[in-house]
């Protein structure tokens, strides 16, 4: 099957000027990534060093759904920590000691910086070094910042993974690493497909436990599963690994291009590729056919949230026939999303960063058929007559790969369908 011919489009949006506004950003901070990371990395605990606001954010974003022994917590800074009456480093040691006593199964501890800890310049990397020495070899302590002054939402995962990279063991073997936390089911599907392509050694990063972590070296190639992993990508390159660039694996087209890039990097023949992928590919195409009928011609507006916006816009426009009005992203790393930008036809406003009030005005003026936005905006926009899809669901659901292509489309169709169904 020759994809390159079907991919030719008049003009991608990779060269259109990007609208950059400065104002209120209505997005989560990087701490939010802990909500899925603490489930994905099963032997890790995430200790946020922050304020009551941080604790409240985590609990509100998690919706208190995962009350059963969460593997995260907040060491809340108090007046005496700020006034210098207590040495914050000593206090932190004390909290870590108590925590590790209570939770002996923890093998990796992440000290996560927050806005207040960054502003008072509490050195968590120093703390992590000290604590690693103290608790080695049982527990490894790392640190990263999930603060809102430095990270937006999914960048928290990027910072977390980047902090792990220097600890990965060396290897001289040829290996492939899939980078980015995926739902277990998707991860297993990808590992199975890639295995069938004949690539022997494939690992996921982050691994579910510390002892299954990937190794890294000059013969290691990696591919990103998520578009928000710029720092992790650089850190892996610094360790000598090769970055396989591709569109992101959403929908039939995205997944095929993504797998194709892997196949090319590992010299997998075209016949072999077709043999392995034809089955799931045609299933994905079939699943998308119905959705395409429903979504075709409808307009979509993306508020910035997870950095998934550009690849998802590519999916909705090219595979579901939608018309993008605006594609907002908190941060656009062209090195990483270039393939998706080249495929996304010119037309929509591409915006980076946000002035939420102005963006809401643009959205209302355009009256899109579907608006993708955060939970703080969704109900207010619904009340004004706009169909919305809350974007956090996109990082909480299995949406990658062939077998999820139909589900991904359906996720966007559901709000529209609901409006058709309701007679009130």
């Amino acid at each position, binding site marked *: 099957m020759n994809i390159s011919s079907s991919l030719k489009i008049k003009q991608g949006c990779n060269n259109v000027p990007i609208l950059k506004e400065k*104002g*209120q*950003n*209505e*997005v*989560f*901070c990087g*701490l*939010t990534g802990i909500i899925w990371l603490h489930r994905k990395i099963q032997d890790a605990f995430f*200790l946020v*060093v922050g*304020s*009551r*606001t941080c*604790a*409240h*954010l985590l*609990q*509100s*974003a998690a919706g*208190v759904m995962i*009350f*059963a022994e*969460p593997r*995260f*917590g*907040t*060491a*809340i*800074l*108090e*007046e005496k*920590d*700020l006034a210098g009456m*207590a040495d*914050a480093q000593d*206090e*932190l040691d*004390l*909290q870590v000691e*108590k*925590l590790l006593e209570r939770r002996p199964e923890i093998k990796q501890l992440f000290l996560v910086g927050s*806005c*207040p800890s960054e*502003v008072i310049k509490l050195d968590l990397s120093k703390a992590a070094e000290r604590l690693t020495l103290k608790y080695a070899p049982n527990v490894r302590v790392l640190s990263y910042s999930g*603060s*809102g*002054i*430095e990270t*937006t939402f999914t960048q928290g995962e990027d910072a977390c993974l980047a902090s792990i990279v220097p600890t990965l063991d060396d290897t001289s073997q040829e290996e492939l690493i899939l980078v980015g936390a995926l739902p277990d089911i998707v991860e297993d599907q990808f590992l199975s497909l890639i295995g069938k392509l004949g690539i022997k050694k494939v690992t996921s990063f982050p691994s579910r436990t510390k002892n299954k972590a990937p190794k890294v070296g000059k013969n290691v190639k990696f591919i990103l599963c998520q578009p928000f992993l710029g720092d992790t990508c650089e850190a892996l390159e610094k360790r000598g690994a090769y970055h396989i660039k591709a569109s992101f694996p959403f929908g039939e087209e995205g997944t095929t291009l993504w797998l194709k890039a892997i196949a090319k990097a590992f010299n997998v023949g075209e016949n072999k590729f077709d043999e392995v992928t034809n089955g799931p590919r045609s299933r994905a195409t079939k699943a998308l056919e119905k959705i395409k009928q429903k979504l075709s011609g409808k307009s979509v507006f993306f508020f910035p949230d997870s950095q998934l916006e550009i690849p998802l816009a590519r999916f909705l426009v090219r595979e579901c026939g939608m018309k993008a009005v605006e594609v907002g992203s908190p941060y656009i790393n062209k090195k990483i999303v270039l393939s998706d930008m080249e495929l996304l036809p010119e037309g929509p406003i591409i915006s980076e960063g946000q002035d939420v*009030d102005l963006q809401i005005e643009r959205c209302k003026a355009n009256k899109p058929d579907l608006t993708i936005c*955060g*939970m*703080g*905006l*969704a*109900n*207010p926009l*619904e*009340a004004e007559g706009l169909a919305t899809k809350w974007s956090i669901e996109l990082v909480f659901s299995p949406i990658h790969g062939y077998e999820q292509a139909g589900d991904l489309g359906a996720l966007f169709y559901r709000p529209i369908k609901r409006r058709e169904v309701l007679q009130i």
Partner: protein
Amino acid sequence: MKLSVWTYEGPPHVGAMRVVTAMQNTHYVLHAPQGDTYADLLFTMIERKNSRPPVTYTTFKARDLGSDTSEIFKKACKDAYHRFKPQALVVGASCTAELIQDDPGGLADALNLSIPTIPLELPSYQRKENYGASETFYQIVRKLAQKSNKTDQLSCNILGPASLGFRHRDDIIEIKKILNDMGIDINLIAPMGASPEDIQIKTAKAHFNVMLYPEVAETACRYLEKEFDQPYTKTIPIGIGATKKFIKEISDIFGLKTDNHFNERLRADWWSKSIDSTYFTGKRVYVFGDATHVKSSVKIANEEMGFEVVGLGCYNREFARDIRSLGKELNLDSLITEDYLEVEAEIQRLQPELILGTQMERHIGKRLGIPCAVISAPFHVQDHPARYSPQVGWEGANVIFDTWVHPLVMGLEEHLLHMFREDFEFNDSAGPSHLGGHSNHDININEKRKENINTIEEIIWEKEAELELKKIPFFVRGKARRNTETFAKDKGLNSISTETLYEAKAHYAR
């Protein structure tokens, strides 16, 4: 530094948001980093609010810290003033902005806006959400309320209802009915629904204030008493007895005649007296939440439902003294804590048959296999119902009766479970039949946990006794285990036989 997993209260600026969001034509400019905007979703999701909370966040970034964050704040104030055209602007800082000390109050003043600005100084590293709400409401009232003559007719203000308060929306409707029945006019309700102009012009016209929620309104009520000679009610009308007392309290101050004709909407009293309710008698209940709802619930549980309250506590330290003295009155220890693990340990120790609590206790109950009804914030979206369901007044008493009874296994069903333990579909792992397949998996898991944590170590259960214990229905099994172990320990036994189990049962018989 204090390790926290789940918190009962958010930071104080969230309390401020609860007040401002409840009001009309008011805007809050909050100096805060990106990410603090999460607070919007508390309102839009839990309360299903259909508009954005009237809050502008400056969302400064690390790179702004080196330059001028105060310029960003001033621009946000000006933009909000022009865009939203509020009658008053509330300004303040969240925890991070407090550290950079930009002085939002001073900066806003310097803009010389044509509307009043109300600066808030909420110490984020010492205080919490309820304090923030109370202080914000007080500052708004203090800044805006103007002297005025009292209305000709006897009238009152209803103070305290705020966003994200437990059933505040419906409590207002119920309390209005009760006051109107007494021939009292409602002059102003605040903060919910009030505009800055309302507060400015109307506040002082009322003859007295109804303090509906001390957590939000007590500071303001005290101020208004001193400043405008307005007495305020101390009784919170939640429960039948408390509603009667509330009516009497007002009647005594103003020499009104009271009769009870207007409580014909009340059904809970007869519902509680009717024989189906006999099985409530002496049911062991644990109560935890905000102080106001806990105080009311303890009275209702003991005096109006015929339960036995076996423990109580609250998370808001500001009202610790009230809760401690209530505990003393009942000869119970009271727990004042913001650590849900302590609450869980206490519930595990006491093994109540019903928990009256918050969303946290609902989870604790789920883990321990103990039914729970919600009586206080923080609450989940499912405890913010579409239907009218107040807590105060006569209808509130009806709603409370229904809500608390709902999670229990009902009278006859309870008997049948005792009698036919091994029925394949009607057994304790099926849970209360009206609640559908209430899963028992976690109960089993928790039994194991309990065995680790809660078993008195030196005492061994003999095999037959252990099997016998399993025949006791799940909703009293934990209590039976604990009672038997305590009994054995008191007797100096080091193992428990079936005999011991039944001796203990006789000993604790009620």
